[in-house]
């Protein structure tokens, strides 16, 4: 569009400010997490050290950091796997109209926009009233799925909207079974998006707070542990924790993006 040089430059500057706004605060705490042992929560830096990272792993004051991290990683992997399988299957189902498809779609969207604290409270009460103990691997797992599945399904919708059925029909004409059509035709084409669903499944679970709060039972996940720390920890160890968990998220995102690019290249090569 012709918006004149001035207009384009103004919009570019605006976008750069927005990116700075998005990343600036996080960069600040990454820098501050390397505070010297006598440093505080704000600048100036009082020396540079790994003191607060060491603190993270050795001290009891941080609570059960190792246990919470382990639980969050495991729960993230379980949620990721279930999100991929369930949304992929549902995505395939929604390519045809079936009785109840409208209701199921509305329910999925509702799952996304019902305030998280209501989901959390409802599941917590459901478990209490049925005499079950809420735990991170049961009630919290279900609560997190109500958050990750809508994202997974919406991604699958976007994919199948652009999907050319001719490939599948060609495979059908050549005598491929339903499983062969899925495994050798559909999956290679949608592969990168499936990795995208997996990325959302893992990271949204790993960082989930509101829906896990009343459903995790006695063992905390990492975000719950971090929230507990915000009220009683007043040293840069909080920033060190932030740096470690944000770094982990970035690592997962990078691996997923590389995998998506590789799959796309492989698909391009195959189709010549």
């Amino acid at each position, binding site marked *: 569009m*012709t*918006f004149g040089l001035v207009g384009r430059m103004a*919009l*570019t500057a*605006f*976008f750069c400010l927005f*990116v700075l706004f*998005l990343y600036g*605060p*996080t960069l*600040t705490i990454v820098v501050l997490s390397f505070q010297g042992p006598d440093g505080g*929560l*704000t*600048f100036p830096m009082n020396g540079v050290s790994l003191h607060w990272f060491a603190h993270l792993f050795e001290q009891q004051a941080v609570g059960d950091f190792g246990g919470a991290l382990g639980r969050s990683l495991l729960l993230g992997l379980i949620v990721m796997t279930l999100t991929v*399988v369930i*949304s992929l*299957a*549902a995505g395939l*189902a929604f390519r045809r109209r*079936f009785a*109840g498809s409208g209701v*199921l*779609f509305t*329910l*999925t969207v*509702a*799952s996304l*926009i*019902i*305030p*998280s*604290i*209501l*989901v959390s*409270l409802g*599941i917590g*009460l*459901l478990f209490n*009233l049925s005499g079950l103990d809420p735990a991170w691997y049961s009630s919290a797992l*279900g609560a997190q*799925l*109500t958050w990750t599945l809508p994202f997974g399904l919406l991604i699958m919708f976007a994919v199948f909207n652009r999907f050319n059925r001719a490939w599948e029909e060609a495979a059908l004409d050549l005598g491929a079974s*339903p499983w062969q059509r899925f495994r050798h035709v559909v999956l290679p084409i949608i592969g990168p998006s499936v990795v995208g669903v997996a990325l959302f499944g893992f*990271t949204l679970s*790993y*960082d989930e707070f*509101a829906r896990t709060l*009343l459903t995790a039972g006695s063992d905390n996940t990492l*975000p719950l542990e*971090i*929230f507990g720390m*915000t009220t009683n920890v007043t040293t840069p160890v*909080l*920033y060190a*924790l932030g740096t470690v*968990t*944000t770094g982990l*998220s*970035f690592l997962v*995102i990078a691996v997923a993006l590389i995998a998506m690019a590789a799959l796309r290249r492989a698909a391009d090569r195959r189709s010549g």
Partner: protein
Amino acid sequence: MKASYYQAAPLALVLGVFLMLPMAVLVVVSFFDYDSVQIIPGFVLTNYRDVLGSAVTWRTYLSTLRFTAIVWAVTLVVGFWVAFYLAFVVRSRVTQLVLFLVCTIPFLTSNIIRMISWVPFLGREGLLNSLLLRLGLIHAPLEFLLFSDFAVVLAYVHLYTLFMVTPIFNTMMRIDHRLIEAAIDNGARPGQIVAHVVVPLCKPGIAIGSIFVVTLVMGDFITVRLMSGGQSASVGLMISNQISLLQYPAACANAVVLLAVVLLMIAAILRIVDIRREL
């Protein structure tokens, strides 16, 4: 046909058990009675009478609606222009994708850490205050930056603008560029193109983004608690306080009212804009 049922069954099962059933429990428990030690099954309307009859509830709703209105307006303006930049100013497809990813990545990191990360920036001795002091623009540190309504709104905008950017960007990418060329050929100025071509065609995206932002802010409790330092109120926070006092039936009645309000707001948005084309 039959295959569709098997394929959709797991999703239906999860949402049935972990969404529909819990919402039904909320409604049922909202009619229960309670005392200081336990909840007593029954059918009483006292919880709703307490919720709707208390001035605190109305004040809290007012404060929450005020946050929602401010955050909606700010995220709409910022989100629109960010999406506009990505869709119409950036020329190459690859750059578009990379910059969109740059906007998306923070969404996949911890919200709580992103809130905490404002502390060294906004605090009494934070970066912003020391910068303003050094520039001589102020003579004493500004106290309202952290643990205030301002901090709450800032954090909301920081966390939720992406929910506006994505759907608006999506609708902008589907705008036929020939429409814009036609407007230019007919002598439209850039401002007129935005107001009379781009904005009307983006309405479905704006509506979807608005639904996200409105529901996220209306139901939030954690941002208000962390960023206001306990000074601001929100409906979500009120519910979470009742939960920590184990007043479950009261919390449930409050939750049902909140759900009704949120659904009414969504219905209002959908009445104004038809989003079916987007789905």
